[in-house]
């Protein structure tokens, strides 16, 4: 029955995506603490040795976290996959695997959003003809990005809010505001802290990265301090295009990477988990 339900879900939710993608997840967006399904369409992959396979296939995944041999979801050996990673055929060379991401990988939801999934599909013994690449019984490496849900309040967000793929509707010339709601913080060491700064990196259209200070020096720069707009709600405002003094004329900032840190960083306990990226629509100034 589960298989029928999953197959129905596949056709209901994934049929459009399946026409264009090798691998995808349902639901979209996901809740990393709840059950999700990873789908792979073998026919869409570049490596075709698994097309029409009647043997069991296995998921082999190393991101957001590669698990140790002691972990129940350890990938196993290349010649002998862990049996718990066996996938289920949905027909027409589409295979799926169900998991609760935070439990499966042993990571936080933030890491799932930041890193996404990297995986491949293989036979129990992936050796095939040997020699690596598509001569082995596997697909090529597959990447699935994980979108943060937009409908619920987020701990870290932007104003204006992001549209699809972390893109804000404005240009890098417009005012951009990073918003951090400390009231939603789950990390014990960061709950209730006030001395917050933003480590900002700007990726230019010239491919170079620009920054005001290194992450360790961020707390020594008053222009990087966040302001508490209301109890527990911190904001940081800037115009990315004029923010970086070393940005050459004619180069635009296309992406901002932000990390929220305390004034004195002693360890990862002094940072908000995750790096937050924002892309700008620079079609118009």
């Amino acid at each position, binding site marked *: 029955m589960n298989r029928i339900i999953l197959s129905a879900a596949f056709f209901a939710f994934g049929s459009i995506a399946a026409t264009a993608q090798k691998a995808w997840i349902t639901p979209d967006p996901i809740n990393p603490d709840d059950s999700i399904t990873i789908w792979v369409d073998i026919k869409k992959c570049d490596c075709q040795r698994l097309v029409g396979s009647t043997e069991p296939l296995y998921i082999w995944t190393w991101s957001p976290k590669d698990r140790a041999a002691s972990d129940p979801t350890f990938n196993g050996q290349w010649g002998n996959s862990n049996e718990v990673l066996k996938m289920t055929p949905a027909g027409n060379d589409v295979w799926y695997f169900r998991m609760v991401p935070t439990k499966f990988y042993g990571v936080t939801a933030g890491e799932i959003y930041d890193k996404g999934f990297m995986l491949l599909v293989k036979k129990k013994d992936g050796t095939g003809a040997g020699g690596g690449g598509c001569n082995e019984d596997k697909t090529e490496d597959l990447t699935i990005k994980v979108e943060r849900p937009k409908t619920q309040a987020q701990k870290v967000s932007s*104003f204006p809010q992001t549209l699809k793929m972390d893109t804000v509707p*404005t240009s890098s010339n*417009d*005012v951009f505001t990073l918003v951090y709601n400390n009231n939603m913080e789950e990390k014990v060491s960061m709950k209730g802290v006030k001395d917050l700064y933003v480590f900002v990196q700007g990726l230019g259209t010239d491919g170079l990265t620009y920054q005001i200070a290194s992450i360790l020096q961020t707390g020594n720069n008053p222009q990087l301090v966040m302001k508490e707009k209301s109890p527990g709600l911190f904001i940081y405002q800037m*115009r990315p295009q004029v923010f970086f003094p070393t940005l050459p004329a004619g180069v635009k900032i296309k992406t901002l990477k932000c990390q929220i840190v305390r004034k004195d960083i002693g360890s990862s306990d002094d940072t908000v988990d995750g790096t937050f990226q924002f892309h700008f629509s620079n079609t*118009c100034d």
Partner: protein
Amino acid sequence: MNMKNLILISIAVLATGLASCKKEKKKIGEPASKLEGINANWVLTRVDQIDVTKTLAFVESDTLLEVTEVFAGSNPMTLDIKSADFTYAITPGTTYNLFPKASGSWKFDDVLYPSRVIFDASTAEELSMKLLRPVRPQDPNLVLKLDKRCNGKRTTSYHLWFTRKS
């Protein structure tokens, strides 16, 4: 004084009191001149940004955020508007200047009941901004809404609050 006289006197006093409560009719007079009201040197004192992607907002703060410090900078823009010859001049200072020109012409969409101020009308640099509040001679602020568009689609808006300098 008998009871009958007392009642009559009381009624007379009451009627006089009621008559004195009648409101005097006031003349409304001519509406305040918006041309006179906008004729001033204005300085930018507040800027709010609007998130146009939020279509289901229940409170104003969900779509509006003050961005004065970053937008205006330490030396805010001044806008000198003259009604006599319908000219304007801008001194941008450190402000994010979205006016295409430093000076030029301006007009209201309607002189008596304006809802928009149009700078450099019918030119390639035309900039039309909604007037968010009346701008009569006694009003301290000129509040304009500037829509930023890309390929015809609004990307964000700014509410520009100018305060009368002179």
